[in-house]
């Protein structure tokens, strides 16, 4: 990095207001966002579990007002941008930021799958231990449409588990620079609805341990999430979508869990429904694949499309979390699409 992290961050914050929303070339947009980190608690199966979440700092890039605390969530905000756009994602660390003690103090944002240079990669071990705020820049190109993720890369075994993650969606744009409702530029990938399923698992012991603790050597997940919520039964889904018959739904699956997992869609009678995988890890499959289930391992993403039937009903997209040793199931978390 040619300039100091603080200078780089300050520059980004100063320029942020001016650049926000202004196109830099035909249809290309620069998106400036600044994230803060805050503490939050989730009630999972009746137990309170501490999380750390990213959130937009709010108010003039977090330089003042209540935005200092961020209002973070887990998962954090979805970042959506077009192929050809530039993302400047800044991280602000301040007195209110929850942290671990040295040597795991501070945070970063790793743009998972973005193939950015070392200076933008958010890995402290390769980037001069820059953990006190930085701006991470990425310009995905045409051909890179799909789902990516961001997460903290400091003491990852702890910080990712604490909930410091979210999804990034790169969408195709038309000639005028408008985001298209397609997974890729291919018209066959057009959708009427999109929804993001962020996979997550929670071992509460990891949430209370910190530093060099042997607790982190034995992962025993107790709670299983889609997009930050438990959905233990089809009647209490973690995520739901009210759609219309015969429409197309894009589901974007982001693997921020730490177990094996299998995604499937079932109808109310329990029959598996077909869907088509168009993109995996932000790259189009050479040949789209129609399947009735797909395995998702930690770090993977899938962008899939399904067509709802012509008669009304309910489908249950669902994630079954499985053990790393033998794929025996821990639990199934339900989503829901009504049409």
């Amino acid at each position, binding site marked *: 990095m040619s300039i100091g992290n603080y200078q780089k961050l300050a520059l980004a914050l100063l320029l942020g207001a001016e650049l926000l929303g202004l196109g830099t070339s035909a249809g290309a947009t620069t998106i400036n966002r600044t994230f803060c980190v805050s503490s939050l608690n989730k009630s999972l199966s009746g137990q309170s579990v501490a999380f750390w979440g990213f959130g937009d700092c709010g108010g003039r890039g977090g330089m003042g007002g209540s935005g200092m605390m961020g209002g973070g969530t887990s998962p954090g905000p979805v970042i959506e941008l077009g192929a050809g756009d530039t993302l400047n994602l800044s991280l602000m660390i301040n007195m209110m930021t929850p942290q671990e003690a040295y040597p*795991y103090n501070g945070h970063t944002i790793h743009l998972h*799958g973005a193939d950015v240079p070392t200076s933008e990669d958010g890995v402290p071990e390769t980037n001069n231990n820059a953990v006190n705020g930085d701006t991470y820049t990425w310009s995905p190109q045409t051909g890179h449409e799909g789902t990516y993720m961001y997460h903290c890369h400091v003491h990852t075994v702890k910080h990712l588990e604490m909930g410091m993650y979210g999804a990034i969606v790169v969408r195709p744009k038309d000639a005028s620079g408008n985001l298209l409702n397609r997974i890729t530029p291919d018209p066959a990938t057009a959708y009427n609805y999109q929804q993001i399923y962020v996979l997550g698992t929670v071992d509460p012991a990891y949430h209370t341990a910190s530093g*060099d603790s042997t607790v982190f050597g034995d992962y025993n997940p107790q709670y299983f999430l889609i997009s930050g919520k438990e959905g233990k039964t089809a009647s209490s889904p973690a995520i739901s979508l009210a759609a219309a018959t015969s429409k197309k739904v894009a589901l974007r699956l982001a693997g921020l869990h730490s177990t094996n997992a299998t995604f499937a869609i079932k109808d109310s009678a329990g029959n598996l429904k077909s869907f088509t995988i168009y993109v995996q890890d932000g790259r189009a499959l050479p040949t789209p694949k129609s399947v009735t289930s797909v395995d998702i391992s930690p770090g993977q993403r899938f962008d899939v499309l399904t067509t709802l039937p012509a008669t009304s009903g309910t489908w249950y997209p669902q994630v079954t979390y499985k053990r790393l040793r033998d794929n025996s199931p821990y639990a199934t978390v339900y989503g829901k699409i009504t049409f």
Partner: protein
Amino acid sequence: MPWCLAALFGQAEATTQDFTLYISSGTWPINGAGGTIVDIWGYGDRAGSPTVPGPALTVYEGDNVNLTVVNNHSIDHNLVIQGVSTDLSAIPPGGSKTYSFTAPTAGTYLYSDTLNNSVNREMGLYGAFIVRPADGSNRAWTGGPAYTFERTWVVSDMDKSRWNDVAGSGGTIDTAVYKPNYFLINGLGGFDGMMDPATTLDGMVGDTALVRIVNAGQYSQSLHFHANHFEVLTSNGVRWPSPYQQLDTINVPPMTTADVLFHLNQPGHYPMHSHTSQMETANGIYLNGVATMIMIH
């Protein structure tokens, strides 16, 4: 480490390749944060020098292979090359056996001791069997994708207190319970794995690396590459169609292999690591486990 036993010259016609591996017990260091010394049973290319993994056995398609295994340990063992050899029978303590076969189609194979309900394998009795094209070219298979250099990553896991400590002192393991706390790449924790020249992807922009991944452990390995996406050439011996699908994270289930082609596209230093929480540690202590470096100049 006696890493490559093969003749290092290309060859145009089938020859005879003779190997001898010696099974014995020993200890194995895992360095860096959270490091330890574990009891192991391993294959070695010298008597009394077991290694984890065992030596990589590299041959050429069509070679006549004679692989002799000498059991210098106190219990039964064997050596089975998955998808290649079929003799599962035991070699008794003090005994030896020569497995003779013709080298199969070019690719990456796992060899391991299949006896004792996974205990023998968990203790370190595994390695990579690599078959190169008969023409000796730097290609994944005859006429297949070319590469500048290749690496083999044998990834694995060990449960020190419940398995290695118990087996190492002659006890009986409850194999229903397995909670590995050490995760290895080429027998190394990430502290060493990030510096080992036989493991790191270290090259120039424009180079292409063939990475042969062998999961000899009992846990699925979800390996994430920073820097660039890679192309998947094979998984578990099955060739994928061209053009090859590009990924940045690949799941390698236990007892399977994958060959990926990594194009070194941009200068910098980047990690490659398991994306599964505890696998980034040694007994919970960060940073260790299944990790190495991608260094692009």
